[in-house]
């Protein structure tokens, strides 16, 4: 098991190296002189020289990359011109909001997906099954920014059920403030969960141990709780980890729509302020999240099913 974990960690190293290269080269995509682009209308010859020096733009490319890497490993991504503060501090301070939003929305998505998937699978081919599938296909077809605006309009403004912007004052109030954004996000990922869960439930429902359980006279609740749901949840780990990047994309949009000060809205906001270092770091953090979550998913999976670790 430990060897499997070690091997999995080693596999990540080339990916991390590649990710750092991509993030480094992102700034090279800026047409013209990055120093001039960073400064925009503030550009003066002295400032340009200072920024070129700070970014190390006059060094050979490989040396620039090594500099970038050694600074990055120390959490040094330079100073944000817009916030007049360390890029690292500005970005990391916003991470908790992003993480909370993601966890909350995954929980809501599961609450939505599990009963519907069970319903759909148990009544396969009947009207409820088709209705569920159509409903969730529509959910998948709605662009997140639009469903967010519509939900905010209906639940927030029209019916005044939930607040539509800001993170709240902590505790229960924050939970209430996060509900609408998390719900928006949950609606966009629940269809993916339903699809996977439905097919794994169908498999479990048809399995011998469920038939045996039923023949032995187990009541429906025990059967569902201890056998069916439990055995069909495993693929969910895979689905959530595989679609984690999609979830992050949705988070970026939702944070912006609902004015939540997370890393995603920071990324969008930094485009118009030309805070390229912030864009770099936000992109890096999101990629690292994907890598870490995929690793955790694999480890969790191996813990649940030790055959995987032994097999390879």
């Amino acid at each position, binding site marked *: 098991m430990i060897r499997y974990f070690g091997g999995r960690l080693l596999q990540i190293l080339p990916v991390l190296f590649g990710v750092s290269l991509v993030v480094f080269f992102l700034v090279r*995509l800026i047409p013209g002189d990055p120093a001039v682009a960073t400064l925009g209308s503030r550009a003066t010859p002295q400032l340009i020289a200072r920024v070129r020096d700070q970014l190390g733009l006059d060094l050979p490319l490989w040396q620039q990359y090594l500099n970038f890497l050694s600074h990055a490993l120390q959490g040094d991504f330079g100073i944000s011109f817009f916030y007049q503060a360390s890029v690292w501090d500005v970005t990391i301070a916003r991470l908790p909001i992003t993480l909370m939003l993601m966890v909350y929305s995954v929980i809501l998505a599961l609450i939505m997906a599990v009963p519907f998937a069970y319903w759909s699978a148990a009544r396969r081919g009947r009207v409820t099954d088709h209705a569920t599938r159509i409903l969730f296909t529509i959910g998948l*077809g709605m*662009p997140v920014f*639009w469903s967010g605006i519509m939900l905010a309009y209906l639940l927030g403004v029209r019916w005044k059920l939930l607040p539509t912007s800001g993170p709240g004052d902590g505790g229960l109030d924050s939970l209430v403030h996060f509900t609408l954004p998390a719900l928006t996000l949950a609606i966009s990922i629940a269809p993916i969960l339903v699809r996977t869960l439905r097919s794994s439930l169908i498999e479990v429902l048809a399995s011998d141990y469920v038939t045996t359980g039923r023949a032995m006279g187990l009541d429906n609740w025990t059967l569902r709780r201890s056998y069916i749901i439990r055995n069909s949840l495993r693929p969910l780990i895979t689905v959530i980890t595989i679609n984690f990047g*999609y979830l*992050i994309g949705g988070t970026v949009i939702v944070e912006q729509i609902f004015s939540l000060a997370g890393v995603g809205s920071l990324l*969008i906001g930094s485009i118009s302020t030309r805070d390229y270092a912030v864009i770099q770091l936000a992109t890096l953090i999101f*990629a690292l999240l994907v890598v870490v979550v995929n690793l955790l998913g694999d480890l969790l999976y191996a813990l649940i099913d030790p055959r995987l670790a032994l097999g390879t």
Partner: protein
Amino acid sequence: MTAVANNVPARGIRLPRLLRSGSWSLRIGVALMLVIVLAAVFAPWVTPYDPVALDLRNALKPPSWKNLLGTDNLGRDVFTRVVYAARIDLQIGAIGVALPLILGTMVGLIAGYFGGWVDSLIGRVIDVVIAFPFLVLVIAIVAMLGPGLINLYVALTLVSWVLYARIVRGETLALKRREYVLAARNLGYGHLRIMLRHILPNAIPPAFVFGMSDFALDVQVGATLSFFGLGAQPPAPEWGLMIAESRSMLLSAPWTVIGPGLAIVVVSLVISLIGDGLADKVRGLDG
């Protein structure tokens, strides 16, 4: 039947034959898609209004028989703009699939066919690009290149070729061990001929099927970037941009936001109908 069919190189997918034998979801999907495409191409005949000309006397009119989806704050007919916008949004979907499909198929074919260090190198690159959340990397690239549709296409191509490469690589790995490919090699055919004439036609259908769901995703990503001001630029009619421009009028004129959003939902649904039908079809081809 399958044993025989497997040894005969299929000639890819032909559209007319596909439609005749296709499922209902595929037929309905293709028919609806055709209606949408025709409406976009012949937009001037579909609606009498101009998509960009201002008509301030008719601003913010609610939906009526004259203006099916009402008018926006500049008096432009929302339905007209939604129809014209299909030109841009479908173009985003089409280019967002076509360029990555071509690039990814070539790379995947090379990786799968030659194997060895070429394959491991390409595999590493694919792993790295997949590590980034799709939308985040597209936004980051467009943020650096500057807003606009061309840069959006560049970003979509740079990011999503890997998905096609992964699919085609897997197919190629399986196909190159088939008897008919080995036979072609024994006949002394060159690598290029074997790759293009014998492997490619059979490796590409799964990539096409994935392309359908990718099309819907690209339309959504395109609308999202335009919504953030990074894609299509005003006064161009584009669904995401229309929603961004009308967002502040949601309370007084909800139709200006609902119309373009519904257009995206409808296109996504039609695409998923076609995608499901195609997926069944390709599964059928594999036996």
